[in-house]
């Protein structure tokens, strides 16, 4: 007789006993066994497992978190060994060196553009690169800084072109004036920066000449004055900075125009207007003092002064002094 409260494993026990019995018994015993096999109910643990796998967090973890974690763990374990890490580092360094040494990246030529021949020569000397070398080894920023240290270079653009050419596009500093100092002549640009030295004034006859201490700091003002004094251009010898604050316009025949500190261009234009009307500058004058804008003051040459006085009937006592 079967027990009333049966466990599901009972057919297995009865099967062994049933094999001894003849005809119908094995069939009867086989029936519950098959029934037990067909039992669709999941075991408690498989049920729980399925429910756990259906939980959103667990699913996300299994799909994304676990592979990532496994990968990270594998890499970490592999790198845990010092020898392997060192080997990897050398391997990487070798690979990198091999890659950098490829002919595609080799720079064998430097081409300077936008510079005159002597400047190009100077720039090339300034490169200090043992060409040919790999383009990875060239510190373009440092080279550029080195080139821009040259006075005659305003800016430089460096590019590694295909075909292993290092192209250096130089923008030259343009000299706009000649500055005469005790040591000699210097070409300066509009900011007063030195461009180059000059041996003789005649090498650059078209540039205005400036002189005096601090003249380089007011080059733009000097240029404006030169431009304004265009009608007198053939007579101008140069501009002299006085006391590092104002300009004197020096003309030939030792004439001088003393310009004010403020609005010198305006004062000069006023003088030119006066000159146009009264032909002042062709007269026998030593200086025109424009420093006071209320009235220009003229100084005549001694001869002219004496002539003037004689014409006025004044008799002066003159001596050799």
């Amino acid at each position, binding site marked *: 007789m079967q027990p009333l409260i049966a466990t599901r494993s009972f057919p297995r026990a009865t099967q062994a006993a049933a094999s001894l019995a003849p*005809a*119908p018994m094995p*069939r009867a015993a086989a*029936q519950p066994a098959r029934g037990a096999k067909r*039992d*669709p*109910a*999941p075991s*408690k643990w498989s*049920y*729980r497992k*399925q*429910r756990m796998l*259906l*939980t*959103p967090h667990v699913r996300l973890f299994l799909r994304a978190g676990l592979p990532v974690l496994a990968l990270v763990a594998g890499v970490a374990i592999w790198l845990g060994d010092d020898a392997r890490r060192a080997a990897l580092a050398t391997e990487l360094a070798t690979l990198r060196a091999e890659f950098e040494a490829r002919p595609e990246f080799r720079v064998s030529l430097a081409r300077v553009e936008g510079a005159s021949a002597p400047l190009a020569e100077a720039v090339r000397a300034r490169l200090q690169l043992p060409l040919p070398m790999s383009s990875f080894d060239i510190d373009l920023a440092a080279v550029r800084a080195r080139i821009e240290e040259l006075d005659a270079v305003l800016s430089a653009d460096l590019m590694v072109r295909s075909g292993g050419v290092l192209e250096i596009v130089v923008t030259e500093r343009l000299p706009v004036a000649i500055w005469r100092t005790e040591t000699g002549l210097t070409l300066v640009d509009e900011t007063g920066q030195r461009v180059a030295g000059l041996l003789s004034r005649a090498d650059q006859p078209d540039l205005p000449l400036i002189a005096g201490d601090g003249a380089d700091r007011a080059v733009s003002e000097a240029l404006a004055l030169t431009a304004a004094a265009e009608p007198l251009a053939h007579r101008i010898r140069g501009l002299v900075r006085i006391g590092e604050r104002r300009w004197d316009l020096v003309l030939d025949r030792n004439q001088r125009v003393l310009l004010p500190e403020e609005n010198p261009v305006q004062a000069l234009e006023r003088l030119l207007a006066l000159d146009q009307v009264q032909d002042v500058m062709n007269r026998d004058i030593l200086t025109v003092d424009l420093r006071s804008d209320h009235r220009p003051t003229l100084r005549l040459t001694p001869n002219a002064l004496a002539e003037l006085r004689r014409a006025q009937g004044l008799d002066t006592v003159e001596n050799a002094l």
Partner: protein
Amino acid sequence: MTDLYTSQRTMRHMRQAAMQRGVVAILDVGTSKIACLVLRFDGPERLREQDGVKPMAGQSQFRVIGAATTRSRGVRFGEVAVMNETERAIRTAVQAAQKMANVRVDHVIACFSGAEPRSYGLAGELDLHDAVVSEQDVSRVLAACDMPDLGAGREVLHAQPVNFALDHRSGLGDPRGQIGHRLAVDMHLLSVEGDVVQNLLYCIKRCDLELAGIASSAYVSGISSLVEDEQELGAACIDMGGGATGRSIFIKKHMIYADAVRMGGDHVTSDISKGLQIPLATAEKIKTRHGGLYATGMDDRDMIDIGGDPGTESGDWDKDRRQISRTELIGIMRPRVEEILEEVRATLDVAGFDSLPSQQIVLTGGGSQIPGLDGLATRILGQRVRLGRPLRVQGLPQAATGAAFASAVGLCLFAAHPQDECWDFEIPAERYPARSLRRAVKWFKDNW
């Protein structure tokens, strides 16, 4: 879980939690099958009116994303008879449904047909403090209902306020805010055997599931099988299950009576098995394939093999080559079905079904699929009998749309749109303990 009544409130919170999560399982623990549906709630009204789906009973809120049935084991007369077998069957159904839905469900709403449901009509009345009916007044009048003696070990399964009356005006659905002096309520209370419910709850708990609601299958199959007019005008739903036949009477969209007799399709099967000396499995097979209730002359010549399948035959030639005519089968089935219907008739008479304005009777459940049942039921129950199929819900597989799934579908509707039960109202302030903080809060709320 000792007191079912107090745990009903907890279940409502569980239901809220399940709605928040959006997934809830439906478990119909029947005698012949256990059905599990997984519902996904997408929030209200995803489908527009132009889709042709109207939100009549909240059935457009959810979608069935998983469905599974398994043969029920360890359940007799709609009650748990063998705990671990039932647990395994529930686990099977839940696992298969979860697999189909591809989502984990933690909350389950269950229904069962047995446990001897008994209906009580309760009435309570209350003189209002002030003229306007407030929420508290509704709670108080529900509390004022005289509680009948349910009997030892019996618990309340449903307690639904059915009707409110204010002074001489009756038939109010929602009396809140109305003006009157005397508020009365009619309440329908369904009690069941507490131990049976506890057994079922224990089985569900063993499957790691949280119970978010529990219902009587007679009630929920009424919800799904009766159309709106029938629920409004009065109708009875006969849910012919495997081990129990449930009856529920609806009027004005409220259940006013529910009952179950412990007889069903399994009895027909066992009659066939005993009458023809065949195993129960074979008897079930020939019942579903060849069963009927009206014999015709042709059925005499319609011979049915009852010797069993090649796998299950005994080896005795005479035993394995037995045949019966279909008339004989019908002759065995018909008296039992008649008996069930007579029983139904008797209980409907006791319940006063005659006095309803409309006396529509709807037969549903797996047992209602016997050919010829509508004719037989007409003769016993009256002319207005129809066979009912459950409401269509979205995503339900074709295999689960039959009459056998009336209570499962009804439970879906119950999950989406539960009726107000008395524990959905707040506890009247007087019922709180005297020193309770909630009572103090309540007093502040009422006075400021």
